[in-house]
C-alpha cells in the first residue's frame, strides 16, 4: 500500500489555494454580479464552465438545463467524492445586488459556493496530489436549489425540460450522482464572528401546493350576488390554516406559509380564479403529512364556505437533511487544524434550521455534509444579506473542503471506504425517483 505524506500534500493544496485566492474571490464576485434564478443560470453556468476548462477539466454541461459536472480523476481507483456548488440566485428585487429586470439576487450567498468549488478544483487538479488519490472528485454545479418560481418550473415540467422542480432532485433522476459515493458543500450563513464554520443540524422537509380556487365572475358592483368569490375562499382558507397552528407541536418545527400569486384580475369583477401557493415544512415526513392533511382540509373549507371549487396540485418538495457524522468529524478536524480550535461551532444533529434544501434529498441516498461558513450579515433571503468576508467565505471553505477530500481519498481511501461501508441509505436513487414522482398529485374538491 502506498502510504502518502498527508501533511505535505495538504500544504501543497493550501498553498495553491492561497496563491489563487484573489482570482477565487473575483470569481465569486463575478457570479454575484450576474444573479440568475434556478434553471435560468445560463451566464453563471457558462462562466463557471470556462473557469473549469481553464484548469484542464472536461466539463459535462446542460445537465438539468444549466447544471454541470467535471471529474478530477485520482491516479488510483476508489470512491468518488462529490463537491457541490449551487448556481442559482433568489428573487429579492430590493437587494442591492439584484438584477434590475428579473429581481434575481444572491440573497442566499450561493455565489461564494462557486468560488469555494473552484478553489477545491484548483488545488486538486495538481498532478502531485492526484497521484496520491485513490478515487475521484466530482465537481457538481447544481441548478435551482431555491424552490421558487413554481408556476414557471411547472411549465418547464409540462414541456419535458425538467421533471422535478429542483436541481439536485433532477440530477439524482438523471444519474449525475450514480457514480458519486458521498458529497459535501459549504453554504454561507450569518453569525460572522470568531468561528469560521458551523457543522451539524438538520433542515425541514417540505411540500408545495398550487391551490387553484375556481368561482364565478360577475360585476362586483352591479351583480355581486351572481358571483362566487374565489378570493374570499382563499382568504378563509388562510384564516382557517392560522387556527390550526395551535395544533402544531414545537418538535415538528411546522411551517406553513403561502402567497397569493393570482388574487383576481380586475377589481371591479368578482375574482373567479385565484391561485394560492402554499408551502408546508416539517422536521419529519410524518409530521409533514400530519400538517398537510390539516392544511388541505382548510383549503377545502374555503371552497365549501363560498360554494367555489378548489384544485390542489401537490409538488414534490425536499426531504429533511441528515448529515453524516463521520464526514462531519473529518471536516471539523481539518477546520480546527487550519483555523484553530475555536474556528468551528458544532450544532446537535436535531437542531432544525427551519428551512429546506435539496441536499436533504441527496442525504437519503448517500452520506453528505452541509456545513456553513459564518460570513454574512443581515437576514438570510433578506435584502440586507451580504457577504462580509469573501476571504473566509471562499478561501477558507475551499481549504477545509480540499483537505477533507484529501483525508478521504489518500491511503487507499480507507476513510471514504469506511464511511460508505457504514452508511445505510434510506432510499436507492431509483426508489427516490419513484417516491418523488408519487408525490405529484392533483385533486379537485367540488362541494355539492
Amino acid at each position, binding site marked *: 500500500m502506498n502510504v502518502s505524506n498527508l501533511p505535505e500534500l495538504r500544504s501543497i493544496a493550501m498553498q495553491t489555494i492561497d496563491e489563487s485566492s484573489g482570482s477565487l474571490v473575483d470569481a465569486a464576485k463575478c457570479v454575484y454580479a450576474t444573479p440568475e434564478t434556478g434553471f435560468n443560470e445560463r451566464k453563471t453556468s457558462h462562466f463557471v464552465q470556462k473557469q473549469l476548462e481553464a484548469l484542464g477539466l472536461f466539463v459535462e454541461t446542460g445537465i438539468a438545463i444549466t447544471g454541470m459536472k467535471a471529474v478530477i480523476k485520482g491516479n488510483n481507483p476508489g470512491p468518488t467524492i462529490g463537491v457541490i456548488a449551487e448556481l442559482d440566485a433568489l428573487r429579492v428585487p430590493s437587494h442591492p445586488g439584484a438584477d434590475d429586470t428579473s429581481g434575481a439576487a444572491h440573497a442566499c450567498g450561493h455565489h461564494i459556493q462557486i468560488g469555494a468549488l473552484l478553489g477545491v478544483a484548483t488545488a486538486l487538479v495538481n498532478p502531485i496530489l492526484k497521484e496520491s488519490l485513490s478515487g475521484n472528485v466530482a465537481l457538481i454545479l447544481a441548478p435551482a436549489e431555491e424552490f421558487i418560481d413554481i408556476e414557471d418550473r411547472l411549465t418547464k415540467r409540462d414541456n419535458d425540460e425538467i421533471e422535478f422542480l429542483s436541481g439536485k432532485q433532477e440530477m439524482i433522476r438523471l444519474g449525475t450522482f450514480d457514480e458519486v459515493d458521498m458529497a459535501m458543500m459549504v453554504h454561507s450563513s450569518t453569525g460572522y464572528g470568531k468561528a469560521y464554520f458551523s457543522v451539524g443540524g438538520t433542515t425541514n422537509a417540505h411540500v408545495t401546493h398550487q391551490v387553484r380556487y375556481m368561482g364565478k365572475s360577475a360585476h362586483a358592483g352591479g351583480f355581486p350576488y351572481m358571483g362566487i368569490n374565489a378570493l374570499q375562499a382563499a382568504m*378563509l382558507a388562510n*384564516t382557517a390554516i392560522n*387556527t390550526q397552528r395551535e395544533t402544531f407541536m414545537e418538535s415538528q418545527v411546522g411551517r406553513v406559509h403561502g402567497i397569493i400569486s393570482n388574487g383576481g384580475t380586475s377589481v371591479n369583477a368578482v375574482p373567479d380564479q385565484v391561485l394560492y401557493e402554499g408551502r408546508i415544512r416539517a422536521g419529519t415526513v410524518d409530521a409533514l403529512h400530519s400538517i398537510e392533511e390539516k392544511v388541505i382540509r382548510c383549503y377545502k373549507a*374555503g371552497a*365549501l*364556505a*363560498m360554494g367555489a371549487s378548489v384544485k390542489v396540485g401537490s409538488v414534490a418538495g425536499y426531504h429533511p437533511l441528515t448529515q453524516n457524522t463521520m464526514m462531519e468529524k473529518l471536516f471539523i478536524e481539518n477546520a480546527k487544524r487550519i483555523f484553530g480550535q475555536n474556528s468551528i461551532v458544532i450544532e446537535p444533529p436535531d437542531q432544525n434550521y427551519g428551512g429546506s434544501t435539496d441536499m436533504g434529498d441527496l442525504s437519503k441516498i448517500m452520506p453528505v455534509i452541509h456545513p456553513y461558513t459564518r460570513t454574512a450579515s443581515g437576514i438570510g433571503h433578506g435584502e440586507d444579506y451580504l457577504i462580509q468576508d469573501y476571504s473566509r467565505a471562499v478561501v477558507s471553505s475551499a481549504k477545509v473542503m480540499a483537505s477533507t477530500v484529501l483525508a478521504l481519498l489518500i491511503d487507499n481511501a480507507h476513510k471514504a471506504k469506511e464511511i460508505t461501508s457504514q452508511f445505510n441509505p434510506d432510499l436507492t436513487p431509483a426508489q427516490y425517483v419513484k417516491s418523488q414522482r408519487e408525490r405529484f398529485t392533483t385533486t379537485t374538491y367540488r362541494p355539492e
Partner: protein
Amino acid sequence: MIENDVTKTFFASAIDGRVDEIKRISLDILNHPESGYREYRTSKLVADWFRTNGFHVQANIAKTGLVATLDTGKTGPHVAILGELDALVVPRHLYANLETGAAHACGHHAQIGSMLTAAVGILDESVNKTLTGKISFMATPAEEYIELEYRQTLVDNGEIEFFGGKQEFIKRGFFDDVNIAMLTHTGGETPGTLGIGGSNNGMVGKTIRFRGKAAHAGGSPHLGINSLNAAHIALAAIHAQRETFRDSDTVRVHPIITKGGSAVNSVPSDVRLETYVRASNVPAILQTSQKVDRAFRAGALATGATVQITTNPGYLPAKYDDLLTELYRHNAASLIGDDNIIRLNHGTGCTDMGDVSQIVAAIQPSANATSGDAHGIDYVVDNYDLAITKAGKAMGMTVIDLLSKNGEKGKNIFGSFHAPMTIDEYLRRMRSFRSNSTYED
C-alpha cells in the same frame, strides 16, 4: 264628511269615559313583564277584563293566549284585533323584572291597551247593533323570537309546535274563519304620528353545535379539536358571504355564541351558537340559509370538528294589505290629521304578524309614541294617548267601516285579497323550514 259618523261618535264617547281604566291595565302589564309563553299573570289580567265586560273568553290557548269574540249574530266578515302579551328580556331596562330580566322594551303592553280600547267602543250597543259579522280580540303570546331553548322544551313536551304565538293561533284554527286582522305596534319615528303600510322581513332561526375534542390547551393542544376555532372560521365565512346579499332582499344574519368553551385551559370541544337568517322574501331566506349552513360546515371541515345545525321555522315576511291600509288611513287622519299620518318603510325586523299577513288581509300600523331604542334599555312609551286611545280608536273605527252596511267594505277587502297561501299550505311551508343535520368530514 266622515263615514258612519253617528256610530263613530257613540264609539268614541264610550271610550272617552274609560281611558284611565285602560291605561291602568297597560301600566299594570308594563310593571309585571313576562316573556313569551310565560305571560300567565298578563293573560289572566286581560281574560278577567274581557269576562268582566261580558265577553265569552277562550283562554290558555298555546299556554297563555286568549280570544274574546263579539258575535253580532248577523252574517258578515270576521275581523280580528290583536295585542301581544309578551315582554322581551332586557335586564337593564327601566321597567325590567329584577328576577327574570323581562321588560316591555318593545311596547307590547300598549298593544293590549289599544286592543281593549277598541273593545270598549265596540261593546257599546249603539255601535255593535249597526255591525254584521264577528269581531275577535286576540291576545297572543310570544311574539319575540327568543329563549329558544325554553321554547324547544315546550316543543319537546308537545305543548307548542311553533315558537311564535300567532303561529300557534293559526295552527290551532283561530284564524280559520278570520278575514281581516290588525294590530297596532308602538314605534319611535316622528313623534305623534301613526305610521301605515310598510312590510317586514321574514326569518328562520338556527341553533348550531360544534363538537370537537377537549385537550389540555397548554400541555397538548395538538391532541384537541378546537370547536371555538371552527365557530370563528364559520363566522368569518358568513361575513364573506355578505357581498352576495342583494340590497332588495334586505338580508340580515346576526349570530351569537351561546357557549364558547368551558374552561380557558381546555381546548373548547362544545361550542354553540344561535342565529337568525332574515330576508324580505322566502326564496332569499332559503338561499341565505344555505349559504350560512355552508359556512358552518366549512368551520367543521377546516378543524376536523363535527357540526349539528338545527333550523327552525321563524316568521314569514309581512306584506300589509293596501285597501285595508287606505281605510285605516282615513280613520286615523280623522283623529290626528292628515299631516300626522306617515308611510312606513320596509322593516328589517320580523313579526309573526307576517305569518298572519300571508293568510288574511292584515295591517300593522305603528303608533309613534315612544322614546329610546327599540329593544333597548331606554325604550318607553311616553304618549299613551296616542299609543292606546288614538290607536284603539283608529282600529275600532276601521272595524266599524268594515262591518257596517252589511259588511260591504269588509267583504270587498277580503274578496280582493289574494292570500299567498292557504292555512294548510302555510303549515306545510313552515314545517318544511325545519331541519336537523349533522355534518362530519
